[in-house]
């Protein structure tokens, strides 16, 4: 359990966040504060707006109402702010989204070199260090297409970490993986959590939530329906919809 890492500095603030796709009100009055070092797990039925919410944080999706502040930087029209926020926020996708035409190492050094203007030597040394941490330094010169799903996802995590982010967003990082590969990715994420990274994870891996989460958030219909620390959340869910959801995913 890692419930003592959080400091008082706010890393992510969502205030009255609202978003529409055309007429469709996909996010309704979302309020969320994440302190430095906190780990948040977000769950909820498919289509409830989990991805949309965390994608608003690094402006992959545009919100229409409310405020987003990341690492003290307000997310607004100013392209400079968006760039600054993206430097502080790493993201891991369900389908890895590695660059298939580049080797693993090139995937990892690309952003440090082009966005942070880091010298190549330094970027490569740092990338090798991080590949070591996700336990695939020997794959550095291969192309993503030659790796297994679990390996690709670990590369994707390393690639994000190469930018030295303050916050990591995970959007269902294990749901596209074969069952035998889920653990290797979760292990990397757990290690990252114990090192004090601020994390927002959309996931249905309840074991992971129980081990590392400071808070679990349940979303339904574009709203945050319930929020609690993991023990209470799983053993004593307040809301009827939370109970239904938990009974469905914990059944088997």
């Amino acid at each position, binding site marked *: 359990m890692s419930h003592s890492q959080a400091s008082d500095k706010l890393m992510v603030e969502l205030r009255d966040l609202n978003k529409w796709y055309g007429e469709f009100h996909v996010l309704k009055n979302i309020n969320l504060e994440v302190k430095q070092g906190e780990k948040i797990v977000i769950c909820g039925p498919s289509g409830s707006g989990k991805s949309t919410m965390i994608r608003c944080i*690094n*402006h*992959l999706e545009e919100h229409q109402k409310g405020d987003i502040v990341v690492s003290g930087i307000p997310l607004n029209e100013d392209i400079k702010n968006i*760039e600054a926020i*993206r*430097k502080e*926020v*790493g*993201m891991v*996708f369900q*389908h890895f*989204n*590695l*660059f*298939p*035409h580049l080797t693993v190492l090139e995937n990892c050094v*690309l*952003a440090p070199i*082009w*966005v942070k203007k880091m010298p190549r030597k330094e970027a490569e040394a740092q990338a090798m260090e991080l590949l070591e941490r996700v336990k695939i330094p020997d794959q550095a010169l291969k*192309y*993503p*297409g*030659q790796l297994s799903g679990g390996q690709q996802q670990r590369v994707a995590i390393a*690639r*994000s970490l190469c*930018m030295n982010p303050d916050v990591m967003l995970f959007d269902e990082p294990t749901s596209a993986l074969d069952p035998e590969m889920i653990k290797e990715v979760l292990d990397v994420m757990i290690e990252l959590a114990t090192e004090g990274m601020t994390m927002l994870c959309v996931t249905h891996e309840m074991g992971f939530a129980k081990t590392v989460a400071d808070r679990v958030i349940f979303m339904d219909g574009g709203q945050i329906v319930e929020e609690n620390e993991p023990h209470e959340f799983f053993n004593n869910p307040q809301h009827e919809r939370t109970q239904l959801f938990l009974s469905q995913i914990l059944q088997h």
Partner: protein
Amino acid sequence: MKYEIQPTLPPPASMVGVIGWMRKHLFNGPINSVATIVVGYFLISFLVPTIQWIFIDADWVGDSRDACTSGGACWVFINNRLDQFLYGFYPEAEHWRVQTAFILLIGSIIWLVMPQTPKKGLVAALLLVVYPVVAFFLLYGDIFGLETVETHLWGGLSLTLVLAVVGIVASLPLGILLALGRQSEMPIVKSVCVIFIEIWRGVPLITVLFMASVMLPLFFPEGMSFDKLLRALIGITLFQSAYMAEVIRGGLQAIPKGQYEAADALGLGYWQKMILIIMPQALKLMIPGIVNTFIALFKDTSLVLIIGLFDVLAIGQAANQDPKWIGYSTESYLFVALLFWVFCFSMSRYSQQLERQLHTGH
């Protein structure tokens, strides 16, 4: 039941020699056998006389039509006019300049095609940026004491190659910009690109060439003479870039959204994202389409004969009019066709090889 480890065996021999292969592929059943025989009969009855006419009964050397007595093809005709086919009316003493330009071109292409040669990127950059300038001054002269050769003397295969290479080299970057513009979220940029592309795609190249040679001069101040070849080149390039833009747009659309999102999430800017992530992947997908438009362009260059430029086909037609050689147009058309075919076929093979080289297993 007991589980036993099964031995690994070689595959059964399915083909036993030539006979076995023929039985399996050509005569495996009555319909296939009949088809083989019928097609074989027509192939032989067409190919034998053709080969006889082209090679066996043909006359190759001599200096007038009197040398053509064997009843086959009269290659003497082509032989006598080979210089014109290759160089047009380019002064004979200066042919070495055309040859140098050609050797530089072919040399760097071979360098790029060979699998083991180093520094391919540098050679490609030189070919795209430095070579056009060098080739222009080599061909045109008026520098370093090279005699000026006006463009109306350029002709034959060398003119065809100038038209094609300039059209290809200039239309690719222009096409990329147009395709990106068409995808842009800025309404003005987007509509300018859409209008440009749709206008050029909606008119035949012949019209473009006519307009380039007749209308373009009207837009320029009086007395400013504008080279006819240059006008044709501008027309061809703009025309070609509109087609290129559509091929490239197709490639861009095939790149998954996740690639854009990963690049955005890492903080890459628009041009970094396009140049480092999207374009390399899209260009790879587009190689067949790009080469197809190149091949079409290469063949379309022959249309310049209608505005009075003497490309290799126009030279062939002019040769057919020569009273001394009346009656040998089959030979000249065949020869021109062969030249076109050699270049187009090479392009197509090169593109296949490039696709294999760039394959990274996904």
